């Protein structure tokens, strides 16, 4: 926790009061975040509470580095947020961290130039801390802010959409990377133009924002390429700059390295002979004991080549620029497979969002499959209970009555026995129908091809079959396809008014394709009627799909595609 560098007694009391207030705010926020019901909810709640605490700390640090000693203002602001919107704490913290990081970068530049105002930045003091200490903290804050923001935006698609615009076909998580385009534009424009960089930056940022919102996929590609370009440029600049600084540190040359830096637009560094003003010679010593005047700060930064966040100059920042160049390069390379689907295909990387949607699809179709199986079992039980089972009970009763009547009234007994025989025949018929509904005999015996041929024979329509299957398919796929085709043929017979229909089945090695066409009136609506929806559900368990084309006037064509491999070699159907 940053503390004001000279805490007096009244300040101490003020601090205690502020801390008490913050504690109060946290206590108020606590019951309003997360749901304590489950263990997972409890963990989320603790995480959100952690964000609240982090918000207080970060706000204090930020306020303290903006205006020395003003940390209490930040704490008060954080308290206000905690009171009003405790759930937004993490998102605000991430934004504050990013700002804090940028301030740190600025401070590091000021330290490098020796124009830093006295004040605290995180754990560093601008006067007696080395520049790298400030810089490391600034990078850490930036990284932390980016990570936190990414996590928060991913968890809140609504907010992400607000920031990023439409996300058609893209998960917000995939699109967040394109936000880096803004950073690329800002850093890149600083390298390209030295004089009007502010204008270029603003214009470039507006253009980048438009691209991000309108064409997120393109923005992501641009980001990847831009980052790699930045990294390579950085390496080139650093190389030429080290050569220069090495030359400059030659004892024979009295010129200060700062003034010797080349114009940013040229990749080669040319030391320019220039006389050093007294103000500039004061700036060479970074650890100057007394703060330089602000007027001097305006003079100094212009001749140095800007690169990356800190700027490239001889001495310490060359290492920083090198590190930044590598970070840009690495980030760009990491983004390439994420932004270019072609590259992704080559290296076989599946993006997170695709896996997520696949898992969701699997969970959904599994739930449907389980439900369907349960419903089928219930129906089976009911059919058996009301049908065959009941008939067998009646049969037993009839036979018992016949047994009793046998000697008393043989004719009545004979009638009862005949009735019993008929009842058993009916029970058998029912069981047969039941089994046919569960697993059709020809399907069990011969597989899909002959089962569909049998189906075609049984259909009241004149069904032509055109079947080319390499062998038996996985049994569940066969069953699903069989019942789907049966449903489609039944629909055609009932509603289409067709006399002729055609079933074509082909297998391409990995995909089973079934076409059911009836030459009827057409106009079938997939949205209406549960039959087609049932088929879709049935096929979804195998990642299969159904497409129906039914223009008014016909013909109606239903195409089903199910990915599957055939398992057994062809069984001869003698």
């Amino acid at each position, binding site marked *: 926790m940053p503390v004001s560098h000279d805490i007096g007694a009244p300040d101490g009391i003020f601090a205690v009061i502020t801390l008490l207030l913050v504690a109060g705010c946290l206590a108020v926020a606590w019951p309003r975040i997360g749901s304590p019901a489950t263990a997972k909810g409890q963990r989320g709640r603790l995480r959100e509470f952690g964000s609240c605490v982090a918000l207080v700390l970060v706000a204090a640090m930020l306020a303290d580095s903006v205006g020395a000693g003003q940390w209490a203002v930040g704490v008060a602001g954080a308290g206000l947020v905690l009171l009003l919107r405790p759930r937004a704490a993490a998102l605000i913290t991430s934004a504050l961290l990013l700002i804090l990081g940028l301030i740190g970068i600025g401070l590091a530049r000021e330290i490098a130039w020796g124009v830093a105002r006295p004040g605290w930045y995180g754990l560093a003091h601008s006067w007696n801390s080395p520049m790298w200490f400030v810089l490391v903290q600034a990078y850490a804050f930036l990284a932390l802010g980016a990570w936190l923001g990414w996590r928060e935006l991913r968890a809140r698609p609504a907010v992400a959409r607000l920031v990023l615009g439409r996300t058609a076909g893209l998960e917000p998580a995939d699109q967040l990377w394109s936000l880096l385009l803004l950073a690329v534009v800002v850093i890149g424009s600083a390298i390209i133009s030295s004089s009007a960089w502010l204008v270029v930056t603003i214009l470039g940022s507006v253009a980048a924002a438009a691209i991000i919102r309108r064409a997120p996929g393109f923005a992501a590609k641009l980001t990847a390429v831009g980052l790699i370009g930045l990294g390579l440029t950085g390496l080139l600049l650093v190389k030429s700059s080290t050569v220069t600084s090495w030359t400059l540190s030659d004892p024979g040359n009295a010129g200060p390295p700062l003034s010797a830096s080349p114009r940013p637009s040229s990749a080669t560094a040319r030391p320019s002979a220039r006389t050093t003003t007294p103000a500039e010679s004061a700036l060479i010593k970074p650890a100057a004991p007394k703060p330089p005047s602000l007027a001097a700060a305006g003079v100094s930064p212009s001749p140095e080549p800007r690169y990356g966040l800190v700027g490239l100059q001889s001495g310490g920042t060359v290492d920083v620029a090198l590190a930044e160049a590598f970070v840009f390069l690495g980030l760009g390379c990491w983004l390439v497979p994420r932004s270019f689907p072609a590259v992704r295909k080559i290296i076989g990387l599946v993006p997170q969002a695709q896996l997520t949607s696949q898992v969701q699809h699997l969970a959904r179709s599994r739930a449907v499959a389980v439900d369907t199986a349960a419903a089928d079992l219930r129906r089976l039980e009911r059919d058996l209970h009301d049908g065959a089972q009941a008939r067998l009970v009646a049969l037993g009763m009839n036979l018992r009555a016949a047994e009793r009547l046998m000697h008393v009234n043989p004719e009545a007994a004979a009638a009862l026995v005949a009735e019993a*025989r008929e009842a*058993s*025949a009916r029970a*058998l*018929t029912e069981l*047969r129908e039941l*089994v*046919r509904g569960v697993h059709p*005999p*020809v399907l*069990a*015996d*011969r597989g899909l091809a*002959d089962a569909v*041929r*049998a189906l075609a*024979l*049984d*259909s*009241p329509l004149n069904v032509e079959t055109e079947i080319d299957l390499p062998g038996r398919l996985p049994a569940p796929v066969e069953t699903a396809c069989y019942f789907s085709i049966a449903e489609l043929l039944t629909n055609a017979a009932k509603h289409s008014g067709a*006399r002729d229909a055609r079933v074509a089945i082909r297998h391409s090695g990995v995909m089973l394709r079934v076409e059911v066409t009836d030459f009827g009136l057409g106009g079938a609506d997939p949205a209406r009627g549960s039959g087609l929806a049932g088929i879709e559900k049935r096929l979804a368990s195998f990642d299969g799909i159904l497409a129906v084309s039914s223009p008014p006037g016909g013909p109606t064509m239903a195409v089903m595609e199910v990915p599957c491999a055939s398992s057994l070699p062809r069984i001869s159907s*003698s």
Partner: protein
Amino acid sequence: MRVVVAEDLFLLRDGLVRLLGAHGFEIAAAVDDAPGLVAALIGERPDVAIVDVRLPPTFTDDGLRAALRARHEVPGLPVLVLSQYVEQLYARELLADDAGGVGYLLKDRVFNDDQFVDAVRTVAGGGTVMDPEVVTKLLGRRARREPLARLSAREREVLELMAQGRSNSAIAQRLFVTEKAVSKHSTSIFSKLDLAPSDDDNRRVLAVLAYLNG
């Protein structure tokens, strides 16, 4: 008359053997799987075989395929196929060689032993017997078609019974009419369906089934 029985369930096999024995058939062999059936059919050359469609080793349609194979080697070998289900597809395969001497019945038909024994005798004599359920399906499929739609209700009844493989006298008995009336109906049916008339029961059945199957 010598019979081979192929049925994997002991109770049913035993029941069939007893029933046939009671009606004076001689049981040449009673087997419980498809390889045994083929061996018995080729080795014993029975007058008729009664075969369950579903047999070991794969418990699919081994019985049917064994019967078809045996008929391929011994053309016209009379086979009566029994099944828990009747399928038009299997009926077509049995009828495909046009050699006669085939039957295809639901297992339940065994309940009525007189009719069942009649069917066995018909098949053994080179006749054709189709389960009423098969015939109903065949007719159902063509019911809406010309010229079947032109048949009168009574003519359809006669056609159905003809397709099941019944003789004129059996049809007359069943419909409580004279044989002459049946003969008149059958002539009318054949002319309406444009089939060559035939007095031979067996050829008549095949013609009707071929028409319905076509």
